[in-house]
């Protein structure tokens, strides 16, 4: 159907394409980490600590003598997973709330949208800090907390789209044919929402990776020895004046990934925008 047309438009959008290729490259590197490095990311060699980049240690070693290149690859797995799963949670929740609020309207809509307002009122980072302080800062908790605090924006977006979709005749026709509400929501309405959800999810992954980095910087993110780009960056800050490579490379990795995600997200937005017709 439309996907072929979107595919052609996507290939014609250079920024989106660049973002997608960069992400493919980063994802592939993280996925094939064991093939790309022979160093164990957690193996400490105190005799080789704080070495600058060399043929053996491509990106040098950290304060415990661990290979930074290897930690970057394995840390990439963690950071990307945090981003993807957090967004999976937030997309599921946001889409569900938005669809239900928009389709039923009335009291349901009012209650759900006030809930959205409440969640949006909380300064997210403090909410996350509080929750992490009560639970413990593990990979899963970080993911869940980011996911459960980032859905309201998408919920509003989906609700708005649903509000206008439900007035379309095919929804009346579907009701006239005896279709149940869940079927109308998920089979008839959801496909119309794929484009905005995809754009929002792409941008959301970048946001989640940044949030995880910020949490790690405060020591509340993914906990060492498990590597994430955020905590590699953090552990490097004490050695910034003697070992710049410890902070620069994870910083660049985060920057490039988030930039690529944003380019892809903005690009997808243009691809799906019917008014953008060159």
């Amino acid at each position, binding site marked *: 159907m439309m996907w072929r047309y979107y595919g052609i438009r996507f290939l014609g959008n250079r920024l989106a394409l660049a973002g997608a290729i960069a992400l493919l490259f980063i994802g592939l590197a993280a996925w094939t980490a064991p093939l790309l490095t022979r160093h164990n990311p957690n193996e400490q060699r105190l005799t080789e600590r704080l070495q600058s980049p060399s043929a053996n240690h491509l990106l040098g070693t950290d304060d415990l003598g661990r290979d930074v290149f290897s930690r970057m690859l394995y840390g990439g797995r963690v950071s990307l997973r945090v981003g993807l799963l957090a967004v999976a949670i937030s997309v599921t929740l946001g889409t569900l709330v938005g669809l239900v609020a928009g389709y039923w309207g009335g009291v349901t809509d009012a209650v759900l949208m006030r809930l959205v307002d409440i969640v949006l009122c909380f300064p997210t980072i403090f909410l996350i800090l509080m929750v992490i302080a009560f639970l413990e800062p593990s990979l899963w908790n970080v993911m869940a907390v980011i996911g459960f605090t980032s859905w309201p924006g998408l919920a509003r977006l989906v609700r708005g789209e649903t509000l206008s979709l439900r007035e379309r*005749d*095919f929804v009346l026709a*579907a009701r*006239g*044919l*005896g*279709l*149940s509400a869940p079927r109308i929501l998920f*089979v*008839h309405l959801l496909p119309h929402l794929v484009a905005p959800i995809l754009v929002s999810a792409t941008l959301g992954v970048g946001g989640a990776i940044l949030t995880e980095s910020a949490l790690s910087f405060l020591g509340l993110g993914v906990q060492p020895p498990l590597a994430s780009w955020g905590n590699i960056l953090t552990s490097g800050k004490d050695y910034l004046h003697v070992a710049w490579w410890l902070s620069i490379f994870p910083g660049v990795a985060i920057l490039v990934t988030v930039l690529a995600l944003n380019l892809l997200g903005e690009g997808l937005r243009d691809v799906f925008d019917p008014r953008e017709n060159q």
Partner: protein
Amino acid sequence: MSLLTIENLRVEYRRGGKRIPAVRNVSFSLAPGESLGIAGESGSGKSTVALSLLRLLPESATVTADTLCFEGQEILSLAPGPLRALRGGPVGIVFQDPFSALNPVLTVGEQVEEVLELHGEGRSRARVLSLFGQVRLPDPAGVYGAYPHQLSGGQRQRACLAIAMAGRPKLLIADEPTTALDVTVQRDILNLLDDVRRELKMALLLVTHNVGLLSERTDRLAILYAGEMVEIGPTATVLGTPSHPYTQGLLKSLPRLSHTERRLPALPGQPPDPRDIPVGCPFRPRCPSAFAPCATEDPVLRPMKNPSVHAACHLYGVTP
């Protein structure tokens, strides 16, 4: 026994705290296999009547009736489950605009199969193709995998009809099924409706603003004016010897090949604003034969000399 019985149907829309009556005093019944045309100008409430039968009106509408009964089931008090079973099953519906009544992101075949699955027969490509054959869609296999935008208006309306027929309805409601189509296609679709109705022995409720299209195609004809049913009877009788002054005026204003006048006679004035329906007969301000009782009392439907015709007019005797 009649298939559908409606007595004293009344629909009101709530708007800004006010209740605006859109349909009043509508009563009729439909026998199995019978076809009834409902005609009226825009705003006369004909679509509202059609949609209220399946409770498809928006939440701002309040529907009341002494009886709204399909095969012994009171539709207005039906629980959501049985109501869904009725919709698309025993009662099929075809909408006005086939361009927007099909979901643009699903294939046409999928949209028919979905109804088959829902109303008991299960998904079956063969059955979908046979339905497409029944509505005389050329290239059924091609239409099966097509998206709505790949079909023409007439093809889409045929597909909509196939969807409505998937549940083997006993009653088919067609809400202005040809208004959005080209004039040449309109006739095809109406003939098709008539043919499948006879083949499947369905009752048909055909709503339209085009009285000309109804002649010869429906057994009976009902005329709506300002939300009230003013006349109902056998189509040929209503069109040949109309009883109600509104029907008479309406038919005079239709262009005819045999007429040579340059200017068609028009009814003076406008239909009343539904927010401000006059006391008495709603047609009184425009009626050439209005007299005293018309200003005070709203006439009800009563049998005429030919008892198969009912009209709501004081000319034929004041309400006892």
